[in-house]
């Protein structure tokens, strides 16, 4: 049914441009660059600045470090809430990426900024309902506002958030017994 789709997906280039070329450094917006530099200065190798654009910063971290980085972003940079939590499935990399978009209400300087904090969890080859081998630490203790977003991510992509107090289904039916629907293996009938 979806063989055409799958082959097309495999052809797509998997490598992402994650490094900022050094020669472009001067052109980068200063305020955003300073924020990103603060994170890099504190955590060094543990973090990777994926891009710095006007009003947008993206930082990739390993899942073991995400809690300390998130805490630093909240306490020292001043981001105070999560706007959205999105999960993205990458079957070619055997990984699921969870992306937190963080914003600030309290600091007027940061009101335009969205800091994107992304982490990846290994994904099982053959996802089965109830097979919770995809784990990530929950950020609910740090950003209280992620509670429902993480619940949605849990049911839609099968990412189990360790330390989340309420890992229940939110939008899907209670008797849903199929793959998590936003994984790429789950295909819509007829497409």
């Amino acid at each position, binding site marked *: 049914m979806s063989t055409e789709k799958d082959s*097309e997906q495999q052809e*797509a*280039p998997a490598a*992402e*441009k994650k490094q900022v070329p050094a020669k472009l450094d001067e052109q980068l917006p200063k305020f955003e660059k300073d924020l990103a530099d603060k994170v890099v200065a504190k955590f060094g190798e543990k973090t990777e600045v994926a891009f710095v654009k006007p*009003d*947008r910063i*993206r930082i990739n971290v390993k899942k073991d470090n995400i*809690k300390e980085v998130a*805490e630093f972003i909240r306490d020292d940079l001043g981001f*105070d*809430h*999560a*706007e*959205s939590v*999105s999960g*993205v*499935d990458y079957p070619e990399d055997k990984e699921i990426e969870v*992306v937190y*978009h963080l914003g600030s*209400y*309290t600091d007027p300087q940061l*009101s*335009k900024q*969205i800091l*994107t904090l992304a982490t990846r969890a290994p994904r099982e080859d053959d996802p089965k309902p109830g097979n919770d081998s995809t784990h990530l630490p929950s950020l609910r*203790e*740090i*950003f*209280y*506002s*992620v*509670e*429902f*977003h993480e619940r*949605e991510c849990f049911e*839609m992509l099968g990412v189990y958030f360790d330390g989340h107090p309420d890992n229940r*289904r*939110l*939008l*899907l*039916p209670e008797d849903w017994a199929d793959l998590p*629907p*936003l994984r790429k293996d*789950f295909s*819509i009938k007829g*497409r």
Partner: protein
Amino acid sequence: MTTQLPPGLSLEKVDEKIMTLNVGPQHPGSGHMRLIIQVDGDYIVACDPDPGYVHRGEEKMAEYRNYILNIPHLERPVIHDSCNILYPYCLAVEEILGLEVPERAKYMRVIASELNRCVYIQYWLGIYGIFLGHSTMFMWPMGDRELLIDLLEKMTGARVTHSYFIPGGVRNDLPANFEDVCLRQVNYFEKRIKEYADIFYDNPILIHRTEKTGILSREDAIRLGTTGSVLRASGVDFDVRKKEPYDVYEELDVHSNVLKEGDSLARSKIPWLDMLESCNIIRQALEKMPKSGSIRQKLKPNPRGGDVSVYKRVESGRGSLGCYIVSKNKPEPYRLKLSVPSFRNLIALPYLLKGEKLGNMPAVYWSLNYWPVEADR
């Protein structure tokens, strides 16, 4: 590591003997969602919102359709505010495809978006009125709403589901003489909604029912990540139109309405004040809009995005609405996520209802400006 929560933000487990009530999902005042409420006598001790009864899988559907085919179905989650839900999608796709929107189209988008905001708020206000037992407040907004729906129909060709915004501009040009008609109707509309104060907002019965019910403090509103009218009713001045102006909002004088009380009355007043502000914005936009010019940049068939991810947000009728698109050199988005204000505000409901009387439930629930279909997507 662990954050200590203030006492107001703790939800403890309650006894088995306490009665559990299911409010919804068959829409007896809950919208298409269920609230599992536990009551001790007349007082609510716990509330567990259970959305998902109108989940349509918009985000999954978007992965199978190209950037143009995604337009009509993405506005379905909130058809009364269809321009504003497409707005962040169009902004994001424009950044991915590198499109430049003509000046005139930017102003037309602002006008359509503000008209749509009023249409949405009028619909919500009607429901808020009827669930507080105020049937006149159901009739008036539903009637006055038609004025703006007529304008939008002239502009876009459809009464509610406009599909008007497209990446690169808007779909069709304004009809002849639209500016004059729009100005006249908006002026009349503004006069009408000012009268709502006499019958509704200054009404002692309404004030008695909504004042000091469901109070959300400023700190909790920030901590819970609420947005839009819920956030601004709790004293946080955050309006995306002002804080991160998109399209031509920078050139317009936008005033964001903020109240400090954080109760149901304040939350229900903010959207009404927003409508008055929208009338100001529309008048400014009509004046500054170029009288002629291109309305869209032409798209190549099946445009492909690069290898990028983009997050854009706008201020919709309910609050900040974000769209996150991951593009992977394909005509379709690899992943599309809508971060909708209804979903973000829902997290506040258990804290607002705790300790309230059951009879105050509709006053608190509807004051969240919550649209179940949008929250479920």
